[in-house]
Structures are given as structure tokens and as C-alpha cells.
């Protein structure tokens, strides 16, 4: 089954922005997203014609894409193209920003996560997140892992959870002798793996990673990338990255986003990583991946 949105993915700018003053040029016909033959048999996240505003600032325009289960999907594009915003729409972290407004749908396993009956707190437990800068709590490694379990009423064994999470994040052997050590005493790469372990500890279905390696050295980056490949066997991973090499190395699917003077935060092209990198359909994708801008 090929999940290419059957509706017109072009944003319906003229009708939906009542109350928001947009420059008239923005209502101009925007070229549609180029979708490659995706061959996604098991979709998890479906983003349907998603638009997002921070106050009056538009950050996303009519984004539609389908994220396959247990694969790594990379979001690439130049700074300010809306890829982090898109990522944060999938676990409703954007809800924490005052004045944010969303149109369109994001579903996980078919259920609309922005439905009235859905509590964003529950969405965030099911969709874990790893941030750009490693942000362990200034507490022990053990407490870092257990916080999510405690607040979510975890009834299993604590020690088992700590060990299992750290093992999955390939950190156990390095820290098992001193779990009482502060998370902040670890190296940058270790901190990021601790953050991954912490995210895994609440058994999410999806893990969002917002440029998880941008603060790390090449060796630590490589470790995280290896880890991502392992984790993709059990989790759906969506990663925002500035590095096209990284997207090419680790991801199965790649989405290229762009903001220009006319349309802010739109999806230009989406396809299997290999196809997108070798035979881009859109000129701008080609320019970006060959390093001609961005």
C-alpha cells in the first residue's frame, strides 16, 4: 500500500487564515510537494496538511507526509525551514509555546493527537524526544532514568528498568559502576546517550531527535548513529539534522523542507533516502543536497 496523500497536499491558504494577516503574496500558488514512490506498508505518523503559526508568524505551510513504523525518517533543510517545528508538532511540544496555532491533522496509529479528548501529556509519553543540546537533569544517572517511570506510575522493577534502558542506549558498560554519579558529570556523547536511555525508559513508540549530534564530536556522533540503527528495530525514529551526510548514513526516508519569501515551512520533497539523494525531483532539493545553498 502506498500512502501518498490522496487529497491535494497544496495548502489552502486563502480560506484557512481568517484572522491572520498574511502578505498577499503568500496566497500565490505554491508548487506541490514532490513525493517519490514511498512503498510504506506500515505507517505510524500521518501528517495531513499541517500549518502552524507562532502568533502571527507562520512556521509551517500545508505539510503532508507519512512516517513508516520502525524506520528512521530524516527531516533536512536549511535553518528556519520549519523542520524542528514539524518535529515538535508530533509530540505536541509546540503546545508549550504561548500563542501557537495549528491547522491540519497529525495522527498516530490513526488517532488524531490534536483531538479535543487527547491529553498532550499522554502524547509526550508515547512520543519521546531527544534534544539538540544534551539536557540530563542535574541529578544521578539513576534518577535521570527513573523520573519518567515514576511520574507515569511505572509498576515494574526500578533497577531492571535502569539497566535495560542504559543497555539499550549502549551506555550501561560505561556507567554501571557508578549510577549515583551526576548525569552532568558525563561526557557530551554519554550525556546524549543518557537522554536517549531516559526517553526509552518510558517505552515510547516513537522517538523524535532534534539534531541530536550537533553538539558532539565525530566519534560520539558515530556512536549515536550506530545506536539509532539499533533502536530503529523497535522504535520509529524521526530525526532533524543539518548534516546531509548524517541523513544519508542513517535514515531510510528523507523529507526536504524549505522556507522562502513566499511560503514558509513547506515540504518540498519526500522519499526514500537513497532515491531522494540520487534522483531528486525538485531542483531546490538537488541544489541543497549538492551543497549549492543552505
Amino acid at each position, binding site marked *: 500500500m502506498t500512502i501518498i496523500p490522496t487529497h491535494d497536499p497544496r495548502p489552502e491558504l486563502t480560506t484557512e487564515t481568517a484572522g491572520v494577516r498574511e502578505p498577499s503574496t503568500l496566497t500565490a500558488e505554491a508548487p506541490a510537494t514532490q513525493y517519490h514512490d514511498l512503498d510504506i506498508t506500515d505507517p505510524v505518523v500521518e501528517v495531513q496538511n499541517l500549518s502552524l503559526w507562532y502568533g502571527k508568524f507562520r512556521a509551517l505551510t500545508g505539510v503532508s507526509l507519512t512516517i513508516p513504523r520502525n524506520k528512521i525518517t530524516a527531516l533536512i533543510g536549511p535553518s528556519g525551514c520549519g523542520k524542528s517545528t514539524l518535529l515538535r508538532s508530533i*509530540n505536541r*511540544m509546540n503546545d*508549550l509555546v*504561548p500563542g501557537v496555532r495549528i491547522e491540519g491533522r497529525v495522527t498516530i496509529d490513526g488517532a488524531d493527537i490534536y483531538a479535543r479528548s487527547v491529553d498532550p*501529556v*499522554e502524547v*509526550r*509519553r*508515547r512520543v*519521546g*524526544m531527544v*534534544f539538540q*543540546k544534551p*539536557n*540530563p*537533569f*542535574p541529578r544521578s544517572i539513576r534518577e535521570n532514568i527513573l*523520573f*519518567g517511570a515514576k*511520574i*507515569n506510575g511505572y509498576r515494574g522493577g526500578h533497577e531492571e528498568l535502569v539497566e535495560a534502558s542504559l543497555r539499550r542506549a549502549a551506555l550501561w558498560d560505561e556507567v554501571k559502576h557508578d549510577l549515583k554519579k551526576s548525569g*552532568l558529570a558525563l561526557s557530551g556523547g554519554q550525556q546524549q546517550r543518557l*537522554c536517549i536511555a*531516559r*526517553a526509552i525508559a*518510558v517505552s515510547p513508540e516513537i522517538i523524535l531527535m532534534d539534531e541530536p549530534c550537533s553538539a558532539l564530536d565525530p566519534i560520539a556522533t558515530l556512536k549515536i548513529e550506530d545506536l539509532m540503527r539499533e533502536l530503529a528495530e523497535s522504535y520509529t525514529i524521526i530525526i532533524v539534522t543539518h548534516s546531509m551526510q548524517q541523513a544519508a548514513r542513517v535514515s531510510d526516508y528523507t523529507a526536504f523542507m524549505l522556507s522562502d519569501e513566499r511560503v514558509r515551512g513547506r515540504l518540498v520533497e519526500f522519499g526514500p533516502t537513497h532515491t531522494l539523494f540520487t534522483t531528486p525531483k525538485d531542483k531546490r532539493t538537488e541544489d541543497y543536497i549538492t551543497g549549492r545553498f543552505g
Partner: protein
Amino acid sequence: MTPHVSTAARSLFSPSLAARRVRGAIIVVLGLLSVVVALGTLAFLVADVLGRGLPWLSWGFLTSFDSRFAARAGLKAALAGTAYMMVFTILIALPLGVMAAIYLEEYAKDNWLTQFIQINIANLAGVPSIIYGLLGLTFFVRWMELGRSVLAGAMTMALLVLPIIIVATREAIRAVPGSVRDASYALGATRSQTVWHHVLPYAFPGILTGNILAASRAIGETAPLVTLGALTYVPFVPENPLDRFTVLPIQIFNWTSKPQAEFHDLAAAGIIVLLAVLLLLNSVAIYLRQRLRRRY
């Protein structure tokens, strides 16, 4: 010689280095003079107080009640009253101030009402302390019929230091980086769980420092308690919150207004004790701030 820099452009500069150096030197001299005047005054005051008060300092001075005879007069009642009042002041002001700060920082929407409240908290910090005394007299002493008691004094002082505590706590809360909040929310924590498990513990050193500084402000305050009608001659230690009381600055004020010169020296001794208490509190605040400071 780079060709595009013409001699004409160079001739437009007149460095007048000598004049600039002189101006710089004047600033340095003025600054130094200001420091000398400020510190010199302080040094003179401290020296004067020490010279007159030190001979009177003794264990008996701290453990005796006031007396008509300077040789027998002591600070016992004032020390006890100050300690008693400060405990109640902090018990009242700390929870109120911290909760208010949490609400304003973490929960309140950024609208005109919140901004109005914030401006007024800043204004409250600048209200003359005697106004708080009048408020305490009207509201706590008379209307609530608490009398001129420790409790009425503590409640008045709590109001006085509340803005300080709120401002200090808000700053401490704001210093907790957003990345820590993000991490908590991303694990499925609610707002209150995030505040309780992360924001408050990490802001704790700052909150503590703010409270100690607020306490040291309250210890030195005299005007509101005089307005309230705290006693000047107290030959007893308050035993319950509704007892009448006196505090260090009132005792000192009382002694300075007596005609006998001995009492003036006694007041100097009282000032030394008060300064020592203040210095101790501020040192504790600085120590805690350094000790508990977290890195993110």
C-alpha cells in the same frame, strides 16, 4: 602601503591622545574618591560604634533584660523578640512568596492582569516601611484583634518582605534553563510535576538566598514595629505568639533616646550585636549560594 587608503582619509583623524588620557585619568580619580568617601564613612561609623560599644559587650549583656541602670541592662528580651518574630515572619512569608512566584512564572498567562500584578509587586518593594506599619496597626492589631503582639509584628514584616521574596524566587525560577523543563515535559510530565520535581529543587539555592536576605532586611526594620506599638521596655521573653515584644532595633533606638551617656554606649553595643547578626545571615546566604550553585 594599501592603495585604497588615501593620505587624505588618514589626515581626517586627530587622535589627541593626551586629552583622552587626561579624561581617563579624571574618571579614575573621581571613582577612587567616591569609593574612599563611601567606605571611609562606613569605616568611621564602625570604628566609632566599636570603640564605644565593645567595652559593654559581655555575656551578661546578651542574657539580661533591660534595666533602668545601664550597667545591668541587656538585650535578652530584644534578642528573643527578634528571633521569635523572624521565625513567624519566614513561616508566613516564605510559602506565600514562593507560591506567588511559582504562579507568576509558571502558570500565569502573559496578559495585562499579570503585568499589572508584576508592576505592583515591584512597587510594593518601594513602599516606605512605615506604611506597612500603619497597615499592620489597622488590620492586624485592631481589626483582627491580635493586639501589639509578636504575631501582628510578624505578619506586618511578612508583608514587608513578601515582594523581596517574590522577586528573588522568580529570578531563581527563571534561572532554571528551559532545556530542563523541555526534558521533563518530553517525558510526559505535567506542569506541576515539572515544577515540583525539577524547577523548584534547582531554584532552591536562589530561593533560600532570597529568603535569608529578606530576613536580614526585616531584622533591621524599626519603623513599622514602632508604628505597630511594639514595646520599648520589655522585662520578659515572649512565650506565645500573642505576647507583647520588642526587637533589637527598637531596643537600640530606646537606649539612644535616653539622656544618660552610658545608655548611648550601650546602644553602640546593641548595634554591634545587630550588625553581627546581619553579617552572619548575609554570610550564610553567600555561602549557600556558592555551595549549592548548580551547573547545567
